[in-house]
């Protein structure tokens, strides 16, 4: 987090706000709700309180403006600058301006007003932009499903540095952004996708081309707003150009890069028994067209051609994959080998000789 130059802050903890005008893009009740929710993001983690007033001068005046609106910071039409806010202080201090030229919504299309308002209020309270890509105060817009939104620990640290801890008896905490070259990094799921590798962790995924050194971290919701965070298993059916993503007893399908349908399907449709509540890991063997599902210390095998589970399963993992214990986090096949991820370690398994041939760090693909 970064505090605004000169550490400006409000001397009072009980602040007022006023919604000066509305955007025609949303019904006013939704604007009120989005803005109220945005203030709650900050009041939940600090001693600040925010009261709405309906006329006169509030500490934080919120309005929709277009182009040059006489504050020396003209807006630029659709996209580009979405909004801005002023640091704590009298007059224009603390005020938030949204660019009316944007399309404002309460969902994933256009720009989500709640998310942008919550970010701008960080400025109104004395925070600058953070370099943490998972922080609300990161400068670029990235949509997060509002129900999945959690203020990051970086933002909480920032606002509490300015105003002190929350009055709650239990101090609030938030998610931290995983660090690519952290030696303790583990993964939730790994899959290939059209020649790239996707490594899932919480609400993020890394995208990596095996032959390139760059690896970049993204929010899952930036590319697939309808996907949940916390994907638990994933595999690619290269032949059908589809990626299957699992969480609890449901799964989603990407065809190419696009989510085929927004509602998930049941893993029991694949033939898994009802006592299986979630899948730890999965990989598809491109040669045989078989997909392996790993659950605890057992695994099932699914035939992608007949679209049915093979007979004689589950089997014990250790019997067919010597050296691979239980509780696999993730698995994928690349070339001749199957890579199993267990905690911070990655086991390179050669199915031809049925043996682990190498053990590496889980994030060895990131060229740390």
């Amino acid at each position, binding site marked *: 987090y970064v505090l605004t130059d000169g550490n400006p802050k409000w001397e009072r903890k009980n602040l007022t706000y006023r919604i000066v005008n509305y955007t025609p893009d949303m019904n006013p009740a939704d604007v009120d709700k989005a803005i109220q929710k945005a203030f709650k993001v900050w009041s939940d983690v600090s001693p600040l309180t925010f009261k709405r007033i309906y006329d006169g001068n509030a500490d934080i005046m919120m309005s929709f403006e277009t182009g040059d609106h006489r504050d020396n910071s003209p807006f630029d039409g659709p996209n580009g600058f*979405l909004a*801005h806010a002023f640091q704590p202080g009298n007059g224009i201090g603390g005020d938030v301006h949204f660019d009316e030229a944007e399309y404002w919504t309460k969902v994933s299309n256009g720009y989500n007003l709640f998310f942008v308002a919550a970010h701008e209020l960080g400025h109104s309270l004395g925070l600058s*932009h953070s370099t943490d890509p998972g922080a609300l105060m990161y400068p670029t817009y990235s949509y997060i499903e509002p129900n999945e939104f959690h203020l990051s620990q970086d933002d909480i640290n920032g606002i509490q540095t300015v105003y002190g801890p929350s009055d709650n008896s239990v101090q609030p905490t938030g998610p931290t952004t995983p660090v690519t070259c952290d030696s303790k990094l583990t993964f939730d799921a790994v899959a290939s996708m059209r020649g790239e590798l996707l490594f899932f962790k919480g609400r993020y995924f890394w995208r990596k081309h095996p032959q390139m050194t*760059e690896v970049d971290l993204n929010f899952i919701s930036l*590319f697939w707003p309808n996907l949940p965070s916390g994907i638990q298993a994933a595999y690619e059916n290269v032949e059908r150009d589809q990626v299957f993503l699992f969480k609890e007893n449901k799964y989603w399908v990407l065809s190419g890069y696009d989510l085929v349908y927004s509602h998930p399907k049941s893993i029991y449709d694949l033939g898994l028994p009802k006592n299986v509540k979630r899948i730890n890991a999965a990989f598809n063997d491109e040669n045989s067209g078989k997909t392996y599902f790993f659950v605890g210390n057992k695994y099932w095998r699914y035939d992608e051609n007949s679209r049915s589970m093979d007979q004689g399963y589950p089997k014990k993992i250790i019997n067919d994959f010597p050296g691979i214990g239980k509780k696999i986090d993730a698995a994928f096949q690349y070339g001749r080998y199957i890579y199993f991820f267990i905690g911070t370690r990655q086991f390179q398994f050669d199915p031809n000789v049925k043996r682990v041939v190498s053990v590496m760090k889980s994030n060895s693909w990131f060229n740390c």
Partner: protein
Amino acid sequence: SSSGFPVAPETEDEDKNNQLVENYLQHFYNLETDKQSRFKNKNIKTVTEKLKEMQAFFGLKVTGKPDVDTLEVMKKPRCGVPDVGQ
């Protein structure tokens, strides 16, 4: 749209990119242009140095050059408040 997974095309019109870079650095990284700085002093940071500052901020490879990844970030919708200074 969010389904555009592979992102921006490799190269675009050089001038347009340079204008994008200069506008971005002026607005968000205090890049001063000759016009703006009445006092010519050696401390004015060049575009390359400001570009490095921006790349470091976003965790990009610090090249000082407007490469594809850097231009991609500059084209992202964002907050209008500067990233450095006021």
